[in-house]
């Protein structure tokens, strides 16, 4: 069977992913010109490459329209309910590192743990007439960390699609849940990560959509073995 692998369509993620596949003996060439969104693996006819945006890759894995994808674990876990039942994380690729974290204003001297945040959230409505507001684009990860792991229910999510770190200073939210790789943007915005506020240590992964047809398929096994072999 022909299998489809989706790779990030631009930027460092694209270069790093291509480099790993090349080391794994699967050199990727674009079909047509350099900017094409289709590709193939030199020397094998049974693998197609699709170049998609990282968040599309997570969605298409969930829909089962592609067989493999290279994308951030954060996007997969945020995009898909019951991610582990629907996809398999075959290999962690060692690039695209980013932590999804809970960060609060540095000046909140009394808040360093999720338990502190729970106290503040419980009182928030009585003191401020509204719930504690969290700016994030990670709805699912925020909910599972706050209510699933720490029993905190009383907050509101304010959707933020960019410049999330600026929300607390501008007053549009009280705290944030966002990704950070070096922490420098958080620092520049006077935010600190809670000691138990790391929700996910994410990196780029080779992810497989769980499909019955993959069982015993030699091409699927070959791709996984080849990528794992060079890590």
């Amino acid at each position: 069977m022909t299998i489809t692998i989706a790779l990030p369509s631009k930027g460092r993620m694209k270069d790093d992913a291509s480099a790993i596949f090349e080391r794994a003996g699967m050199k990727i060439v674009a079909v047509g010109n350099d900017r094409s969104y289709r590709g193939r693996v030199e020397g094998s006819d049974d693998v197609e490459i699709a170049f998609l945006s990282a968040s599309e890759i997570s969605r298409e894995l969930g829909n089962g329209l592609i067989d493999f994808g290279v994308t951030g674990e954060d996007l997969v876990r945020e995009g898909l309910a019951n991610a582990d039942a629907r996809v398999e994380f075959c290999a962690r690729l060692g690039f695209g590192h980013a932590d999804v974290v809970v960060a609060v204003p540095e000046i909140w001297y009394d808040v360093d743990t999720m338990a502190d945040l729970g106290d503040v959230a419980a009182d928030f409505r009585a003191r401020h007439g509204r719930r504690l507001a969290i700016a994030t684009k990670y709805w699912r990860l925020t909910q599972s960390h706050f209510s699933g792991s720490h029993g905190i229910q009383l907050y509101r999510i304010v959707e933020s699609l960019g410049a999330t770190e600026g929300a607390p200073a501008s007053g549009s939210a009280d705290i944030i849940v966002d990704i950070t790789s070096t922490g420098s943007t958080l620092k520049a915005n006077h935010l600190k990560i809670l000691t138990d506020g790391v929700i996910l240590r994410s990196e780029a992964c080779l992810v497989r959509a769980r499909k019955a047809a993959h069982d015993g398929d030699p091409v699927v096994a070959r791709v996984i073995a080849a990528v794992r072999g060079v890590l």
Partner: protein
Amino acid sequence: MALINLPAFADALLADFESLDTLRVDTPVIQPAEPFLAMAGEDLRRRIFMTESETGESLCLRPEFTIPVCLRHIEAVTGTPKRYAYLGEVFRQRREGGNEFYQAGIEDLGDTDTAAADARVVGDAMRVVANRLPGRALSVTLGDQAVFEAVVGACGLPAGWQKRLIHAFGDQKHLQKLLTELAHPRTVGVFGPEVVRLSMDGLLEDEDRLVAHVAETMEATGYSTNASRSPQDIARRLKEKMELANTRLDRKTLDLVGEFLALDVPLADAPAALSAFAKKSGLKLDEALARFDARVAALSTAGADIGAIRYRAAFGRPLDYYTGLVFEVEVAGTHAVLAGGGRFDRLLTLLGAREHIPAVGFSLWLDRIEKAITSQGGVQ
């Protein structure tokens, strides 16, 4: 089944409601989503059906009746007491059962005789369920958040810890985790390095200087001092947190709380069991127990089948507007909750009522009642 039709017993149920001296209300199916999310928390978002109006207002399909009925009461300014009844479809994303199903219930607003109103609501719920399932034995579980609050209060814990425990009441896993932490407090990662510096500068002993320092820092870093937590908020809770960090629950008190939470007795025996617990533990629970006993007495007076009711001390709902009574009705020997209710004295003020309105009510899961009727194989 995509659509659940109106249950066959709907008319009989409405006749019951009418005989129970209630006013039937209906509410729009499409509701503003904000009050539900603000009251029940962000988790609800995944379980309701949301949409948006053309102007960007968040709307949802009615996931339950209590909030719309209370909002309607506040808007109508009709005064209290009022007893409302409803029957209609609600919409929720459920793992089991359909996504649209019927609920019915009673909300009793503004009755200041708490014990009598509690007893009446439990009795009404038992009666209307029993009328649908004649000849079937019911079992009722009853809990009381006020008794737990009194136990925690009498243990002499700092206010911050009391709040944490009360907030977790009803969420057994979280409560257990808090109690363990209270017995073995964490020592690392609790205070950040800034707090150590503040302490060396002597700011922790001087609240005014601390507030001024926080305010200055906020202004210097571009944070508004009034959009979110104020310098006073932060200074006050820092003090509270230092108290929390220095608190360790001793073995004896921890065992007492555990012993209390394990109480599970027939309601008729509960007053004696609670009074024995208070005596043995030396905790002063008089006021909460007097109210508890008054409710049991009111249930007897109202002629409810007390033998079917058990008191379970750990039973509660982790929602901050529930204040006292909670209860659930099942067919004895099964685990499907057919009716659930409780007292929510804080809800109306949270929803914007000007004055305090005590409130108690219950709702019926009509699809589960239908199932129970079918499983018994008979016609009612």
